[in-house]
């Protein structure tokens, strides 16, 4: 039973998607299906945790996509963290979606829920992939099934254009960089399996792969994974913000971008082998690339007035933390990166939920319009504050733990550039998040008459909290962010398990 | 002298090239089709001259079939030409005729629907159509 579970985790959302299509006409039933599917998925994923703590499980081969490379899945700690987050947050996100989609009277809701279920299925596939080909296939599938979500407001030119940017960058990078890297790995080593220490050991030892080629393949992988939003391949992320907020929240703060950084970590750990990189003096540049990406994205975020765009740039910078963790090329850094995958997920989804909540209740999208909104939407803005704290890395939130681990890893391995980046970016994070909180709670709301002539959406008309499902979801994720601070054991154990397995 | 000894090939090539030139340079579709036929005929000639055999003593070869059969295959028919290329060309001629007739059939249809068999006039008409289509799809 346990053996078949990764397949179960992929099958559940697929079955759910089919049921969503069947029940599409009756929306209560359809949304109940979504919630039940999400619940089942979390249970199925949670049942895998004990297996994951023991390290990579035996591989399950499904199909032979290519004669010698099967579509295969296994359970290992890093993927477990990712799967756990995605499946757990899917429940909250579904609750939130119900409130948001109904509250804003969005069209094509069945398509929305279907694509969501399919995206989660691809995410599960990525999380449990046992070789590079499986990861690549699921990665591309994820790009494709999220495309209809990004272009949800399709006939609008803005949505179509955003869809082009989104798909264009993601697919171009993966096809032009990641695919040759993958095929190259296959050609030179004869294996694409994810194993501890990577597959390059032999080829490097007998000299059939020169170190520069090894480094080049690593380079192709790192930039090929555009979902990790390493600058300059980050443009798709702000573009994707035209999608409805639940999409931005779960996919572009959690599932899709985490697919990117997860792939970065997984490939560095299991396919390339960070110890090999360190041994052959390759890949050191990644630390600097990621560090620059962190600071630059934070800096850009400072000047964004659109709340979702500011959050998007914040995501770019936070993702590069994770890449930076991987780029430290040692187990401690990788562990911190794994931890930050979890920590950032809870924080960022809370922020996006809050942004959507504000949009639903008050129809406001800009930071400058948020004066005094905290008094009308105390729950939302309270949750928002917790999310901000987590982003900045202050206790009592999950962000503190992971940032602490990152800093610790940087200190112990004497990578002072990383230390500097962490400090500067923390200051920048504070600089772009705290003013929002300040506005929301400590400034007086604008007088009702002043704004009414500006916008047709009754900006100044008194409004209260968002619909209850939204509030439930947003407080729920905020609570998660805080809980992980007090009880980090699940994620920390998995991260430790990951570190233990790595050769030093 | 050696080049002259191959004069049959020179002629085959010359006929081919005349045809090829016609296909490329002529703007009348019927002339193009005829040139195509000429081009193929050059190849037929090439095959047929290839089959010619001359014995070391200078006796020219000949068609072996008739007399050998009359003799009941009893005595050596003497030097004879290679019959294989002849057989091949019999087929190839049929193919050539078919090609020509298909070409002419198409050209007749073109004449009916375009009112001309001059390639330049046809391409003018087609450019006009394409231009209109592009205007419509803008």
């Amino acid at each position, binding site marked *: 039973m346990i053996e078949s579970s990764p397949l179960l985790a992929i099958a559940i959302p697929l079955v759910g998607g089919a049921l969503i299509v069947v029940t599409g006409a009756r929306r209560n039933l359809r949304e109940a299906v979504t919630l039940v599917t999400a619940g089942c998925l979390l249970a199925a994923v949670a049942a895998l945790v004990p297996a994951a703590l023991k390290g990579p499980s035996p591989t399950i081969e499904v199909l032979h*996509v*290519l004669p010698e490379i099967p579509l295969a899945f296994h359970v290992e700690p890093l993927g477990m963290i990712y799967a756990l987050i995605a499946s757990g947050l899917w429940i909250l996100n579904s609750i939130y979606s119900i409130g948001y989609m109904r509250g804003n009277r969005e069209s094509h809701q069945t398509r929305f829920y279907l694509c969501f279920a399919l995206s989660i299925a691809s995410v599960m596939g990525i999380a449990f992939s046992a070789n590079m080909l499986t990861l690549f*296939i699921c990665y591309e599938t994820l790009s494709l099934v999220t495309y209809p979500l990004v272009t949800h407001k399709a006939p609008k030119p803005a949505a179509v254009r955003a869809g082009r940017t989104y798909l264009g960058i993601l*697919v171009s990078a993966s096809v032009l960089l990641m695919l040759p890297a993958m095929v190259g790995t296959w050609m030179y080593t004869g294996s694409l399996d994810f194993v501890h220490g990577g597959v390059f050991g032999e080829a490097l030892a007998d000299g059939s792969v020169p170190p520069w080629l090894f480094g080049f393949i690593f380079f192709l992988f790192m930039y090929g994974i555009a979902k990790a939003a390493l600058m300059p391949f980050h443009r798709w992320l702000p573009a994707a913000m035209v999608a409805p907020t639940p999409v931005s929240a779960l996919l572009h703060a959690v599932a899709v971008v985490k697919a990117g950084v997860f792939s970065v970590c997984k490939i560095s750990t299991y396919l390339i082998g960070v110890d090999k990189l360190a041994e052959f003096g390759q890949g050191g540049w990644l630390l600097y690339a990621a560090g620059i990406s962190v600071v630059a994205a934070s800096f850009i975020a400072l000047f964004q007035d659109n709340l979702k765009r500011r959050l998007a740039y914040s995501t770019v910078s936070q993702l590069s933390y994770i890449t930076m963790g991987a780029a430290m090329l040692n187990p401690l850094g990788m562990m911190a990166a794994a931890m930050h995958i979890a920590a950032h997920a809870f924080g960022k989804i809370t922020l996006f939920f809050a942004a959507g909540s504000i949009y639903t209740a008050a129809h406001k999208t800009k930071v400058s319009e948020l004066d005094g909104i905290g008094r009308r939407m105390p729950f939302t803005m309270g949750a928002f504050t917790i999310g901000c704290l987590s982003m900045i890395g202050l206790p009592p939130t999950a962000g503190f733990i992971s940032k602490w681990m990152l800093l610790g890893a940087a200190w112990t391995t004497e990578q002072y550039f990383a230390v500097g980046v962490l400090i500067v970016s923390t200051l920048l994070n504070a600089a772009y998040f705290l003013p929002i909180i300040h506005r929301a709670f400590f400034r007086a709301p604008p007088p009702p008459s002043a704004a009414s002539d500006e916008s047709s959406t009754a900006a100044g008309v008194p409004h209260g909290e968002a619909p209850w499902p939204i509030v439930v979801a947003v407080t729920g994720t905020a609570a998660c962010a805080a809980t992980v601070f007090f009880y980090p054991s699940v994620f920390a154990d998995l991260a430790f398990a990951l570190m233990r397995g790595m050769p030093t | 002298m050696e080049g002259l000894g191959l004069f049959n090939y020179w002629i085959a090539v010359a006929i081919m090239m005349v045809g090829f030139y016609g296909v490329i340079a002529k703007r009348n579709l019927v002339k193009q089709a005829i040139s195509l036929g000429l081009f193929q005929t050059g*190849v037929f000639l090439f095959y047929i001259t290839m089959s010619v055999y001359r014995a070391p003593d200078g006796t020219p070869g000949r068609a072996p079939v008739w007399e050998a059969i009359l003799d009941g295959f009893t005595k050596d028919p003497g030097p004879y030409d290679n019959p294989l290329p002849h057989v091949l060309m019999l087929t190839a001629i049929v193919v050539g005729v078919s090609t020509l007739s298909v070409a002419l059939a198409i050209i007749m249809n073109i004449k009916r629907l375009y009112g001309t068999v001059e390639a330049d006039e046809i391409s003018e008409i087609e450019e006009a159509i394409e231009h209109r289509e592009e205007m419509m799809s803008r």
Partner: protein
Amino acid sequence: MDALTPHLPVLLVLTPLFGGLLAALMPRRGPAPWIWSALVTGFEVLLGLSMVKLVRQSPQETITYFIGWWPAEYGIAYEIDALNAYVILVVALLAFVSTIYAKSSVEDEIPKDRHNFFYSIWLLAISGMVGICATADTFNIYVLLEISSLTVYTLIAMGKYRDRRALTASLKYLILGSIGATFILLGIGYLLMLTGTLNMADMHEQLMLMKAEGDLAGNRTILVGFTFITVGLGLKMAMWPLHLWLPNAYTFAPSAVSALVASTATKVGVYMAFRFIFTLFGSVYDSSATLALMAFCGTLGIIVSSIRAAQATNVKKILAYSSVGQLGYIVVGFSMANESGVAASVIHILNHAVTKGAMFMACGAVVLRMGNADLKSFYGLGRRMPATMAAFTIGGLGLIGMPLTSGFISKFYLISGALHDGKWWLAMVVLAGSLISIIYVWRVLEVIYFKKPEKRAPVEEAPFTMLIAMWILASASVILGVDAELTGRLAEFAARVLIGGAT
């Protein structure tokens, strides 16, 4: 059936030949010719399957059939090995599916009393294409090539009932195709002169003997023969820049003909190139320079014609230009002359046939319902003809080379082939080509799903026979992409057979 088993190689060719002749005798009106053709091509698929089964029983051997018991040196021999069994099966399958598809499209585009004539020519074309794959006699290849070409010219010219430009397109194809065929004939003549035989294997042996005796050094006859054959084949398989006949021919042909021809005709040309370059000239003649030139033409073809496809406004034309580009992949694949490169080529023959067939079929359904295949006709069809457009989308994804579609498998092999020789630039060009293909496919997909239709008038979904056919191909594309175990192994084996002669 058992009694006929030894005759399979020739039956493959005879079935559509007789079928076509009998179709001409059928009543002019009514569905009889169509039903007959579907039966004949269905039977052809069965024959192809049993042929493949026969080959798989003894994969090392070649099944040889002597017509009229004449030995191979004098008569015509048909030889079937793993490679041509595979290509024959591809042609037979595509022919069957296109025949099913043809019903509604032919009813719409061809005058009522010409149906028997149409299906007669149609079956003869299939017969010619299968024959090219089955025969081992070079001159027979020429004859069958002309049979298939002449019938295809006629089929394309029948597009005149919809658009008169079909006639000029067909004539252009006829002229260039005949020049190509004549070049091939000329090349065969040179080889006949040199070896005195027409059988491919025999020719190869004679050439090897001559090489061993040192007669081939500086021999210009073989050089000229090889050149003529290569140029002729390039014309026949529409290798860039010899592809000029292709775009208009595919655009203005009747829809069913576009589907059939696009998925089989050029593939047969590629098969001939395999035979000539690898089986006949392999290890006799150092063709590396030619192959390098072909790689160059192939890469340029991929880029240039993909760009042309991105500029076209007629969807059929987009697909036609994309066919030239996809052919570039096949050419690039075998020009590497290593195992995974040739395997990529072989595999892409099937994969491209399936995807492009599905797309042309979807396009034909649009022509049936909207009257033409302009980009404008596709506005908002995603809601009005969902099943057709879904098939088109799957085909498009396959063309791009998305994972889980057949295109990805070919691309994987192709890149492995390029990296095998350390040709990173070639891999990059191939990938850049597929990026451009994203542009032209996405242009159509955006129009299908995001644009508002111009006219409010309701549009019916495509007829059932069309849907079945295009969905067979679309799902085949997915199945081949999900599980390439069988095709991959077959292609690797075929590649080994081909390359084996060259090493």
